[in-house]
């Protein structure tokens, strides 16, 4: 894997992760638990898909094969998508969505903060903008985790179930793919190990406050970064890509 290939793959990991998370969040639009929350979630989806667009634009430029961000988003199949498995998990109930979200928000917050110091100027500029947005997302999701954990018996139960179910996908966030290792050596990507330390500390403190617990001895499910996904991803893509695939010559 040469530098250019590694950078391209690395940008796809980041871009695909944002895109699939944004796509999942946008499924909630018009169906949220109340109007203010519907708007907040839609706003978070907007920011997240905005990050995806910037990252995939940059990936297309690095690849330099005449593809643009839409070609990357709409004309790759599941095996060519490199998002982490966590983001493709179904929305479930609102606790399932918020637990998935708080895992991702805590991760993205520390990740983008570190990425501000990237040697790559495009990424550092993106990170500086994104970290402000994600710090709001993180406040929002951790606000809900506290309320679910320490709200009613039902909400506590739902949140704990969601944690028990989703915890197995968190390890992948911190397991570097070859491209990420190369980017870290080049001072372009932050060290996932240092992010993991900060992330765990935050999540432990948050869950403690929320009276929620972290499951022990969980086997971590990997593979998304190699394009080996759960069965959910292809349904997301089938829906998302249907129009451009049906009319490949059309411009929208």
């Amino acid at each position, binding site marked *: 894997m040469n530098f250019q290939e590694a950078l391209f793959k690395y940008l796809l990991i980041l871009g695909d992760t944002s*895109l699939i998370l944004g*796509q999942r969040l*946008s*499924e909630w*639009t*018009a*169906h*949220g*638990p*109340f*109007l*203010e*929350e*519907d*708007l*907040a979630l*839609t*706003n978070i*989806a*907007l920011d997240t*898909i*905005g990050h*995806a*667009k910037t990252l*995939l634009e940059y990936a297309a430029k690095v690849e330099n094969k005449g593809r643009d*961000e*839409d070609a990357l*988003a*709409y004309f790759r199949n599941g095996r060519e998508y490199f998002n982490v498995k966590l983001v493709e998990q179904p929305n479930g*109930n*609102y606790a399932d969505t918020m637990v998935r979200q708080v895992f991702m928000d805590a991760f993205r917050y520390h990740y983008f903060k570190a990425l501000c110091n990237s040697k790559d100027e495009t990424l550092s500029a993106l990170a500086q903008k994104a970290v402000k947005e994600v710090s709001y997302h993180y406040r*929002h999701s951790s*606000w809900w985790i*506290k*309320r*679910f954990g*320490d*709200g*009613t018996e*039902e*909400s506590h139960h*739902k949140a704990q179930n969601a944690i028990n179910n989703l915890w197995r996908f968190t390890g992948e966030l911190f397991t570097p793919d070859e491209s990420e290792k190369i980017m870290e050596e080049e001072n372009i990507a932050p060290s996932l190990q240092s992010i993991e330390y900060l992330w765990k500390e935050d999540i432990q403190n948050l869950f403690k406050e929320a009276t929620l617990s972290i499951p022990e001895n969980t086997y971590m499910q990997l593979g998304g970064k190699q394009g080996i996904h759960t069965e959910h991803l292809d349904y997301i893509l089938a*829906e*998302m890509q*249907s*129009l*451009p695939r049906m*009319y490949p*010559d*059309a*411009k*929208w």
Partner: protein
Amino acid sequence: MKSEKELEEIFEKKLANNEFIEPKDWMPEKYRHHLIRQISQHAHSEVVGMLPEGNWITRAPSLRAKLVLLAKVQDEGGHGLYLYSAAETLGISRDEMIEALHAGKAKYSSIFNYPTLTWADIGAIGWLVDGAAIMNQVMLQRTSYGPYSRAMIRICKEESFHQRQGYEIMMRLALGTPEQKQMAQDALNRWWYPTLMMFGPPDDQSPNTADAVKWRIKRETNDQLRQKFVNQTVPQAEFIGLKVPDPNLKWNEAKKGYDFTPPDWNEFWRVIKGDGPCNKERLAARIKAHEEGKWVREAAAAYAQKHNKEMLVS
């Protein structure tokens, strides 16, 4: 203390002087009820209207189109919020309004009981439906009730932006591949008459118009607005090579407007009464979201009570 007759005179004088009626001012009960009905109906329309458009967010054909549509649907929800707040100044709570919607007692714009079947429908809603809504809303910026007027001023700015975005989608399709052009024409064919219905029944069959005009809640009649819309929209369709589906459409030099076929008013009343293509689905989706959100709202309330903190309204 002033007598009711004196209060009414003050109210009438304000109307005559083009002054706003504000929440603390005395107002006739009929005026209050008319406003609650109209503003809550308007708020519900914004929120129910999120459903047909939200239907295409996950399938928007480019990342840019997806972002634009998400932002648009978010704006609609925001309009719902301002309007619920404006209605609350008249002494009704949002919960009561939502309950009336879910019980089928409060109406929302019938246009949202039509399905969005293709991507072109998203263009058609922006161009035609938002276009028609703007005609109504521009007038409402000068409506007599202060909070409603101020909400409408804010809403109008965003709606005209939406209309341009919708027209842009239609233009891209109309100038695109033959299949895209066909998709655009098909959407215009399906949305044209339902959009004309949005202005309400003909003036001689509109039960609320007289009061609304007298109180300066409305300032133009349904038929006047409908004519204005047709005059504006026909050249826009022609400009992108689409055909308005009306064989009788003809410019009338004497009235400086188009003659056109009125919509099928039987269909209009049928959809209002609940038998439109999506009435059941729309209401079911709103009720489902509300019911599935119940434990979420309860958790927030229970936590707030335990921790004595304010609810977050982001």
